């Protein structure tokens, strides 16, 4: 089992969600987060150039069984990239090993519960 965490541009949330649902990955947790990477965000605010130190992003967490890792990652990559080339600020995907997963309703454990 793996936990896939993607930090994406907040404007791409619906595109990613629609693509995931299309690929039959329907379980998802979404949160609003702030952060920055190497992105140099230059915004115009009231005519002045300012460099914001934190940018709004969306974080997606999906727990998957091994067989679904590739399709999930590829779907996110495709949907979250801006244009064909992509641009700074499109985000990152982290994959971490997942030790256990328990469904609260039934007490099921492991791959069944995901």
């Amino acid at each position, binding site marked *: 089992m793996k936990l896939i965490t993607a930090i994406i541009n907040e*404007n791409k949330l619906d595109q990613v969600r629609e693509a995931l649902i299309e690929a039959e990955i329907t379980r998802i947790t979404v949160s609003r*987060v702030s952060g920055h990477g190497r992105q140099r965000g230059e915004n115009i605010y009231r005519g002045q150039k300012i460099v914001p130190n934190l940018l709004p992003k969306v974080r997606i967490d999906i727990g998957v069984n091994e067989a679904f890792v590739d399709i999930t990652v590829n779907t996110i990559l495709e949907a979250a990239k801006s244009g064909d080339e992509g641009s700074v600020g499109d985000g990152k995907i982290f994959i971490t090993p997942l030790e256990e997963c328990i469904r609260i309703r039934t007490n099921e454990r492991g791959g069944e519960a995901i």
Partner: protein
Amino acid sequence: MYRQFKLVFVICVIFLIPLSAFAQDAINIDSGATAWMLTSTALVLLMVPGLAMFYGGLVRTKNVLGTMMHSFAAMGIMTVLWTVVGYSMSFGENILGGWIGWNPEYFLLKGIDESIMAAGVPEYVFSMFQGKFAIITPALIAGAFAERISFKAYCLFIALWGLLIYNPLCHWVWAADGFLLNMGAAGAIDFAGGTVVHISSGVSGLVAAIYIGARRGYPKTTISPSNMVMTMMGAGLLWVGWFGFNAGSSISSGLATAQALTVTQVSAAAGAMTWLIIEGLHTGKATALGFASGILAGLVAVTPAAGVVQPYGALALGTIASIICYSAILLKNRIGYDDSLDAFGIHGIGGIVGALVLTFFIRESWMTAAASANGGSWSVWQQFGVQAIAVGIAIVYAAVGTFIILFIINKLLGLRSSDADEMAGLDHSEHGERGYGMLNAN
């Protein structure tokens, strides 16, 4: 001493003679009526940010600013148009066979600088009061196609709609020589804009919602409100502002004002109560959105009726309007068109219900006056016929006109925002901003 008095007297006479023309006008100002009309003008404007909050809270987080901008843009665009030609088109004398009015004096409001109306109110106040109605009417339509229209197309749409749909309707119903005002014994009754404002905007909204098509994912995915708290504040502001809308439409400060104010309050409350009860019985939960919808249904229904019904009639109007609007929204969900914020379901249906049902609650004295104007007799059903014709004309004119305007704009600019823009949200794609910024860490 005496000579000084004489001199002062002579000077006074010299200055007073040429001033007497103005002095006579100045005497005619009824400061009570003017003060109330100034207040009403401000109250009706307050409804526009109220509407922005009401609609803004009902859309998704990514569209909140875009939706609020629909209301605010109307404040800018419609005021400018109203000043240049709108007032003249609405309240000038019949031209083009009575289709619109025109009075060169009203062009750019040039000729009303010192004009005082017969009601004792400066004409500036009346024209600005009426201008506020021209703002809120197209802003109401925006609820029907929220979350998916391009901002540029919207701006062009409300400008053309205001000029070609609102101004003629306003002229027919409210100008002294408008043909609906003079129909039947005592005219089609539309005290504060049931046909002009609510039926026209609701029907146009329905046409636009169908023409533009549903939001992406509707009705399969749930599209839930971003901020019900803001919606409730907006509904409250609309209720408060409606006192200017209805009670101000008496263009006086007296008995008619008091009558309109009372029935406005009563109908809004009856509508809200009824909606809660229906919803409680139907779904088991009385929602805040239901209460707000009931307020609006009641207010919309009493808008044409505020000048002619008594409180028991207002109770009935609010109740009936809520029942029918609730059913209309259920029906919408079954049919499946995406009138996103129920511009037609509340304003269109509520306006039609109000304009027709008011006939059965008209106060005695009005019917007596109508009968004597008609040479002895005037029945409720004759008035109902007049009301039905006015409603029918408003529906057909608004629907056909809106369709033509939408068709032309769609060819020129394209009405709908692109799929990518719609998914990203209008705040980002149309305005480059985001609402609810304070949720971000910095």
